[in-house]
């Protein structure tokens, strides 16, 4: 198996190199036959990398411990689901998975453009082949997943039990998929820049879909990562501004800017130079993130350590950045906006949103790189995560505000009077909410600013939607229910976007609520003793320990009362697992989730008799809304990606 896999990788390297050269020569000298064989080579690369993935998967499932990778990340007692997820659990495997996604997307790009092969899509294939070659080089020379040892161990080390969580099954593939999908719009953009041709209707539609797909998978991947950290890692938080976490966030912010800029470009023929810049930034940040995870450039808790890939990645990023930015500057003169517009207009608001997103990306990048940057001139410095919270939070606040205003702003030149009229009802609601919060006893300025702001944004979006429904009811005689779906059907991208924006509102609500109002208490309790946390009373009722063949499970039973005179509202069982094969214990947090708040109970320790146990209890407000927001965001993304059926009017086009 190992040999088949390795040979497949070598062959894939050859076919990728061939497709790269053949495409360039084919375009340059107009040999269509050469282009055709280059296309075939791309399909062959896809087949060969798939072979390698199947080979590694087979080795993982059949416990071929002679292969070091299989030995290091799996064991015979693992369930099939986690055996498969071990494919992306380690450095070499996750690189192979990255390469495979790239080869899949490369093949899709070629197959979708079989009929109308343009120079732009050919150059895009060149870019994808070049990227694939980088990964194949790394897999062949630096981190070979098929490396064998001379001895055949009878049992593997197994996956760390901490990684045996559903998050592990979906979080890494989602992120990697987003990273790899960025290569396609990047490639098409570079292709358009090289060939000097506009990406017309058909390709423009593809670019949009790939961009939204990358945006969606990155976004959902990040949110699942947060959920995983919150549920499994037992520290009650979900985001720590670790360099590797930021590496997942930055391309997402950049691609968010890109998606919005593309929209302006398609609809209005403006921001023509801005869009290419955004995708260049997003793709290169994705490559940089992949590199960061595999280096010891920064002190992160998530990296694989120094893997010797630095020269490869840095050369690639340098070439791709200099090349694409150079091309953009070269073509800058041709990128003239079709329409002029006032700053105070929807176009202007979109540009401002884009600038803010770019700013957020830049700020996070500089702050993340601070330890490395500062070491060049003085002592190594680092930012506290609370400082990240404040600085990024302020920019985010402005972006959220614009999100609400954009939707009701007029094209080209907005009228203050019209805007005021449309915003007035939402502003009144926001104002009332602010007063209400103050009366209820909320005095923190951020809560008094953020929550009303979110209400304003949500109201504005919903009212815009309501206007659409009313209009449809009137003109088409539909009932509101029909009109609601008819509206989405008629303009998926617009309403998909609105759903996404509502998702962001919910997500932000959860983030604000949970970061500013958490309570934490810890106590050593004797059996039947109680502790009070916020409005809750917790009684430690029972302690037990159970041995299974693979692990010892220690369980504490805690009764939760809101009012001790009333019956209990919940019974929680925080646990700790001690796996026989792992030295680290696994904390299973017990969480009682309600829309208002989460009660988060950790069993930290106990004395040997089990009569005393040490608990750490947190009350995290509104966390549920983050996950709901993530789900709404997913729905919105899917709605706008759903095939439209009718051909889109070729209004703008991407590129030049």
């Amino acid at each position: 198996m190992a040999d088949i896999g390795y040979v497949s990788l070598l062959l894939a390297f050859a076919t990728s190199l061939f497709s790269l050269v053949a495409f360039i020569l084919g375009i340059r000298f107009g040999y269509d036959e050469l282009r055709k064989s280059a296309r075939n080579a791309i399909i062959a690369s896809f087949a060969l990398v798939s072979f390698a993935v199947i080979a590694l998967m087979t080795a993982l499932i059949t416990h071929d411990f002679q292969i070091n990778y299989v030995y290091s990340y799996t064991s015979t007692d693992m369930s099939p689901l986690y055996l498969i997820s071990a494919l992306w659990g380690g450095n070499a495997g996750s690189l192979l998975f990255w390469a495979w996604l790239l080869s899949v997307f490369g093949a899709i790009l070629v197959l979708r453009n079989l009929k109308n092969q343009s120079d732009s899509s050919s150059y895009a294939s060149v870019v994808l082949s070049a990227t694939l070659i980088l990964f194949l080089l790394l897999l062949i020379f630096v981190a070979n997943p098929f490396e064998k040892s001379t001895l055949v161990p009878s049992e593997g080390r197994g996956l760390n039990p901490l990684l045996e969580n559903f998050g592990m099954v979906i979080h890494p593939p989602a992120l990697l998929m987003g990273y790899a999908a960025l290569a396609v719009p990047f490639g098409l953009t570079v292709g358009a820049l090289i060939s000097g041709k506009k990406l017309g209707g058909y390709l423009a539609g593809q670019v949009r879909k790939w961009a939204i797909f990358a945006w969606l998978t990155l976004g959902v991947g990040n949110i699942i990562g947060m959920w995983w950290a919150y549920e499994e890692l037992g520290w009650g938080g979900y985001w720590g501004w670790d360099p590797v976490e930021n590496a997942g966030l930055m391309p997402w912010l950049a691609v968010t800017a890109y998606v919005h800029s593309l929209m302006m470009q398609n609809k209005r023929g403006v921001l023509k130079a801005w869009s290419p810049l955004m995708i260049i930034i997003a793709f290169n940040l994705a490559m940089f993130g992949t590199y960061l995870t595999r280096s010891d450039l920064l002190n992160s808790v998530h990296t694989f350590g120094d893997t010797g890939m630095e020269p490869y990645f840095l050369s690639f990023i340098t070439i791709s950045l200099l090349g694409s930015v150079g091309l953009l500057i070269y073509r800058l003169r041709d990128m003239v906006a079709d329409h002029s517009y006032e700053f105070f207009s929807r176009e202007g608001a979109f540009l401002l949103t884009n600038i803010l997103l770019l700013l957020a990306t830049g700020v996070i990048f500089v702050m993340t790189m601070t330890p490395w940057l500062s070491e060049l001139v003085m002592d190594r410095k680092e930012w506290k995560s609370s400082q990240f919270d404040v600085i990024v939070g302020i920019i985010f606040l402005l972006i959220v505000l614009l999100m609400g205003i954009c939707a009701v702003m007029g094209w080209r030149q907005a009228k203050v009077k019209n805007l005021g009229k449309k915003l007035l009802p939402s502003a009144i609601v926001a104002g009332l909410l602010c007063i209400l919060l103050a009366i209820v006893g909320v005095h923190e300025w951020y809560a008094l600013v953020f929550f009303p702001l979110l209400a304003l944004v949500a109201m504005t979006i919903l009212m815009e939607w309501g206007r659409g429904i009313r209009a449809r009811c009137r003109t088409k005689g539909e009932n509101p229910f029909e009109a609601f779906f008819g509206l989405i059907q008629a303009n998926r991208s617009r309403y998909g976007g609105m759903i996404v924006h509502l998702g962001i509102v919910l997500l932000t609500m959860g983030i604000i609520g949970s970061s500013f109002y958490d309570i934490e208490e810890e106590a050593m309790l004797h059996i039947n003793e109680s502790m009070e946390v916020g409005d809750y009373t917790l009684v430690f009722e029972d302690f037990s320990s159970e041995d299974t063949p693979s692990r010892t499970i220690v369980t504490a039973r805690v009764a939760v009362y809101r009012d001790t005179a009333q019956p209990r509202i919940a019974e929680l069982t925080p646990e700790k697992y001690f796996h026989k094969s792992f030295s680290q214990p696994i904390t299973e947090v017990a969480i009682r989730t309600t829309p208002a708040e989460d009660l988060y109970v950790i069993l930290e320790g106990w004395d040997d008799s089990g009569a005393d146990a040490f608990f750490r209890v947190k009350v995290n407000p509104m966390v549920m809304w983050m996950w709901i927001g993530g789900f709404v965001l997913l729905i919105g993304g899917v709605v706008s990606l759903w095939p439209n059926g009718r051909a889109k009017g070729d209004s703008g086009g991407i590129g030049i």
Partner: protein
Amino acid sequence: MRKNRKFIIAGLVLVVAMGILFYTALGSAFDSYQTVSEFKSDIVYDEYVSIKGHVVEGSLEFNAEDESYLFEISDKDNQEDFIPVVHNGALPDSFEEGGGVTVKGELETTGVFHTEELLVECPSKYEQEKAQSGE
């Protein structure tokens, strides 16, 4: 291109504003991560810093009275130079004696380091190290 100029000015104002904000924050609180021996050679008290080290084997204790954990950290190859650490919070699952940690907080004049944040290397990294040392 009057409008373009407007945009550029607006952008510049924004960048400058953020730059000033960034700069003020930069002055206020800032910490550096260093190894235990680097820190020991130039000790600062009551200042937020972060130190990277390894937990000394057999040093972990639980103090039931104030519900905190005590342990020592040192560089991997030099266990004589250590810093006693008090951690008032949950111990992450991946925390292990002998394992790599980064502590963020302040060294008190008593010579005990109080953490505000405790980072433990991720399981993926830990596995990697183990795999490398095992060969």
